[in-house]
């Protein structure tokens, strides 16, 4: 009995010590002494686990459904099958499924436009490529890959199990709107980006900016790493952000929260480097940021990423507000409180 008590006491002591260490880690000043991880090495899995734990164990699975539609989308060998499955889930109220149905339709729109009536799509593509003798092999490979992913979707109807709808289901906008209506964070970021990028410096409108901020606010509150990554990159643009470093911090936070920031993730625009050989094949987001910012600035961005992660964990909306505001040059001409641009 005494031995059991001793073991139990030891375990309690170890647990308390671990807890104190962990709390100390959490309270550590986020200022410059925060050491940024080496961009030469991928973040260790244990680091990611720790950072996830800082969200009180509540790293969000963005989809209300049972499938990780992002992974399913990337794994798909044939978008016809994927769309058929995802569309049913979307109709059952899964907004992330809806978003990826839209993505698949967008990806395949050109193949459908060109080859849906072609008796020999591969032959047609070969002829097309033969007329472009300077087209590099990697682009040719990409074209054939896309054809194989999309050709069945181009020729058959994956929506035949859905109830009839006026206008049908082929318009990707329908699915994006469904996802937006279901408060999907990726759809919210896309909507914000579309709104903002359609504004010009001379025609800013407070309502539009307000709407974009609202979408970004909701997406951030969801703690969805993919949405955080995307909005972060978007906000590196000073047109939308008076402090573009915050965008870099948001994207880095997304990496720490589990988003795949490597070039292995085909969703990242620099993943093209693996094929084009026009940039380092294995470089990740950290690499590009570090090269652009230098060590000191990168450390600052990383420190702010940690602040953001802490703010997300505290669920205090006011702490997130500085990361949300659209205050770049596009907002400079807008008089908040009315809709009239200041000339």
């Amino acid at each position: 009995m005494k031995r059991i008590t001793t073991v139990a006491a030891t375990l309690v002591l170890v647990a308390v010590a671990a807890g104190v260490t962990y709390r100390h880690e959490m309270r550590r000043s986020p200022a410059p002494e925060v050491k940024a991880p080496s961009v030469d090495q991928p973040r260790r899995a244990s680091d990611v686990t720790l950072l996830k734990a800082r969200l009180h164990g509540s790293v969000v699975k963005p989809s209300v459904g049972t499938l990780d539609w992002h992974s399913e989308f990337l794994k798909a060998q044939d978008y016809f099958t994927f769309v058929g499955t995802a569309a049913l889930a979307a109709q059952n109220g899964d907004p992330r499924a809806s978003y990826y149905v839209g993505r698949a339709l967008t990806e395949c729109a050109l193949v459908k436009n060109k080859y849906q009536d072609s008796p020999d799509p591969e032959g047609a593509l070969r002829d097309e490529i033969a007329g472009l003798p300077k087209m590099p092999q990697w682009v040719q490979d990409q074209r054939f890959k896309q054809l194989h992913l999309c050709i069945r979707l181009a020729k058959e109807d994956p929506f035949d199990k859905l109830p009839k709808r006026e206008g049908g289901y082929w318009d990707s906008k329908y699915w994006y709107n469904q996802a937006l209506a279901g408060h999907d964070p990726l759809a919210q970021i896309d909507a914000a980006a579309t709104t903002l990028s359609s504004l010009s410096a001379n025609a800013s409108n407070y309502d539009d900016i307000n709407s974009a901020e609202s979408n970004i606010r909701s997406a951030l509150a969801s703690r969805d790493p993919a949405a955080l990554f995307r909005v972060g990159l978007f906000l590196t643009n000073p047109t939308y952000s008076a402090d573009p470093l915050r965008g870099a911090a948001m994207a880095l936070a997304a990496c720490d929260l589990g988003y795949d920031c490597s070039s292995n993730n085909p969703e990242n625009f620099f993943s093209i480097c693996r094929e084009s050989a026009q940039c380092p094949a294995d470089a990740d987001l950290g690499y590009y940021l570090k090269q652009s910012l230098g060590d000191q600035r990168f450390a600052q961005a990383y420190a702010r990423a940690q602040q953001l992660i802490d703010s997300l964990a505290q669920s205090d909306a006011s702490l997130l507000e500085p990361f949300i505001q659209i205050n770049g040059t596009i907002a400079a001409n807008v008089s908040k409180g009315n809709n009239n641009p200041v000339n």
Partner: protein
Amino acid sequence: MRTADLDSPPPDVQKYQVTPASALWHLLLGAIIVLFIAPSEVKAANPVQTSAISCSTCASLADLQAAASGYFLNNYFETGVYQIGAIVLVSGVTNPISAFFSEQWGSSCIPYFGCGTHLVAVAITPDNAHTALLDNQLFSRALGLPTVKMPPTLPSNETDELISLQIQATIPISGPLGFNFWHGLLNYPQFQYYKVLDTRTGLTTNVYVGDSITVTYSNGDTEQWQFRGPLPIATVQWTRVPGTLRDAAGHLVVAVPPGSPSAPVNVGFVAPATNWNITVRPPVNFCAAASSEICIGVPGGNDWSCTVAYFVFPC
């Protein structure tokens, strides 16, 4: 009116620096002018002298302004003539920025001359955001890319999504530019640019976010499309520029909606009451022009409130 050929080597901004010896002579000359000719009495000639220069080192509105001031001073030193109200367009060579400046009297500090009233360049283009906008409207640097032809299945009234995908298939992004994709992240203006591969030629071209290209439809219509990069939404990287659709003869097919990027951009500024215009011919078959419009005298002063318009058109 002078017209600059931007194909010619850019004038080096260093050219406008003066040596101590020449400074002494010009200091005397300048002092006479400043002392005996009150700035308010100077009348700008009509038509106003206009010119365009380029600057290889400029990266911001302040840099362009320094180049413009140097240009005005140098012009005066070389010819002894100054012209209040003269307009110069300064364009970056390596960075896609341009701005208009007006020659004015103003307080400034100049090496060897000290601080006082000098000829200075007053920015007409109001801020850094407009330097990039103006540059794209004037030069559309991505127009170095040949027109992207649409197949008959993609007419001009097809969705933005589909036409953008066809552009992306013709000139896909092949990577961020070198290591400095976020170069200038902390120093506005920041330029996001990418390498795009022209699958027709096998050549890569740098395209800045905001650059435009010409799309030609199978019926001969043309339209401008603007690059917005993959960051907002990965799948749709190009958006049409409203009001730029032209028929095969070059006539506008639709009216230009007010406030659209292709519409003349009106910039409020204060300038002498002189109508002026400037035309530059970029190294591609595209023309740009800018002119003052509607100059209204400000009551009780010598200043005039003008609206500048600039236009871009095929030529």
